[in-house]
C-alpha cells in the first residue's frame, strides 16, 4: 500500500514520510562520515598509538626505535640536569640506567620539571636528541599541596620519589 505523502490540499495525512526520508538521508550522511572517521582513527591507532614511544634504553636497539628515524623517546628527567640558555632547554632523560641528552628549542612549560617522565619527539643527531615537542607524563598519584608543610628541598625530593 502506497503511504507516500499527499500533495498539499490533496489528502489529509501529515507529511510523516518526507521528514522520515530526510532523517534517513541525514543518518546515511553521518554514517558515511563515521566510516571515514573510523578509518582514520584505526589508521592512527595502527601507525602511532599501538607503539607510542621508545624508552631511552631501546633507542637503536629495538625494532621501530632505529636511531636514524624520527622518534618519540620516553624517560625521566634527571635531577639537576635542566639548563636553560638562549631560548634552549637542555636536560638528561634516563630509563633503565641508560641516559640521553635532550635539547629543546624553547621552554617546555606546563608541569615540566626534574624527576618527571617525559616523551620527547624529535631526532637523534650526534648522540643528542633534538626535540621539537616535549610531552609530560604525569603520574596517577594525587597529593594535596596544602598538606605538605615541608621545605622546598623536601618537596622536590618528594616529587622525585613520586613521579620517577
Amino acid at each position, binding site marked *: *500500500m502506497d503511504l507516500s505523502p499527499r500533495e498539499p490540499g490533496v489528502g489529509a495525512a501529515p507529511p510523516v514520510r518526507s521528514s522520515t526520508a530526510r532523517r534517513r538521508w541525514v543518518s546515511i550522511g553521518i554514517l558515511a562520515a563515521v566510516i571515514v572517521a573510523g578509518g582514520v582513527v584505526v589508521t592512527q591507532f595502527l601507525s602511532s*598509538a599501538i607503539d607510542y614511544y621508545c624508552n631511552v634504553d631501546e633507542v637503536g636497539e629495538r625494532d621501530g626505535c632505529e636511531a636514524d628515524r624520527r622518534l618519540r623517546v620516553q624517560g625521566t628527567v634527571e635531577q639537576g640536569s635542566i639548563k636553560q640558555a638562549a631560548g634552549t632547554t637542555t636536560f638528561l632523560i634516563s630509563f633503565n640506567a641508560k641516559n640521553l641528552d635532550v635539547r629543546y628549542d624553547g621552554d617546555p612549560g606546563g608541569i615540566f620539571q626534574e624527576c618527571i617522565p617525559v616523551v620527547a619527539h624529535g631526532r637523534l643527531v650526534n648522540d643528542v636528541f633534538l626535540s621539537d615537542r616535549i610531552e609530560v607524563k604525569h603520574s596517577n598519584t594525587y597529593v594535596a599541596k596544602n598538606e605538605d608543610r615541608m621545605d622546598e628541598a623536601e618537596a622536590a625530593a618528594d616529587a622525585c620519589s613520586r613521579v620517577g
Partner: protein
Amino acid sequence: MSNAQTSVPPPTRTATTRNLGLIAILGSVVLALLGLFFTAEDVVQGSSVRIMYVHVPTAWVAYLAFVFTAVCSAGYLRGKKHSLNLDRLAGASAEVGVIFMGLTLVTGSLWGRLSWGTYWDWDPRLTTTVFLFVTYVGYLAVRGLGGTQQQRAKRSAIVALFAVIEIPLVHFSVLLWRSLHQEATVLRPNGDVRMDGLMLFSLVFGVAVFTVIFAWLVLHRNRVLALVDAVEMRGIDAALAARHAEGVPT
C-alpha cells in the same frame, strides 16, 4: 499495524524525576564548590588537577550509558514482546553517552594541554576513546536509517552489543600499550588508591552527581523518543485512514 508499544509514556513530571533534577542541581553546585574551592591543588599538577572532577565523572557516565544501552538492547532482543520501550531507553542512553563522551574528550584535551603540554596526540587511550565516540555516533546514525520501529530496534540492538566490547579496550588501553595517559588511580587491581582524602571524596561525589544527571536526562529523553514514535505511528495511522476513506484496497 499495532501501535500498542508506542503509546505515550507516563509524564516525567513525577516526584521522582523532580527530586532527581533537584539532586542533580544541588549536587552540581556542591561539586563546583568542592572542585574549585575546598580541594587543594596537586603537588605536581597545581590547579589543573581540578579538571579531574569533571573529566573522570563524564568518562564514567559515558561508560555507564553505553553499558546501559547494551543491557537494554540485550533485553529487547531476548524479550518475547521485543519491547520498544527498551529500545528507546537504549537510544536515549546512547545519546546521553555520546554527549558525555564528547565532554570527556574536550575536558581531557584541556587537561592534556595543561599537564602534557598538548591538546591532542594519537596515544592509545586517546585513540581508543575517540574510536568509541565515533562508534556510538555511528550507532545513533544507524537508529535513524528508517524502516519500521521494530526494524530500527533490532538492527541498533545488534550494533550496541558489538559496540560495548570496545569499553574494556579503552579502559585497559593504558595497560595494554604504552600510553601518555596515566594508569588508573582509583580502580586499581591491587586496590591501592593513590589520591588524598578530600580529592578522592570530591571525585567519588562527582561520579555520583553525574550519575544522577545521567538518570535524569535519560528519563526525559526516553519520553521524548516515545512521543516521536507515537507521532510517527499517528501519522501512519492517519495515512492509512485516508487511503481507506478513498476506497483503496489494502
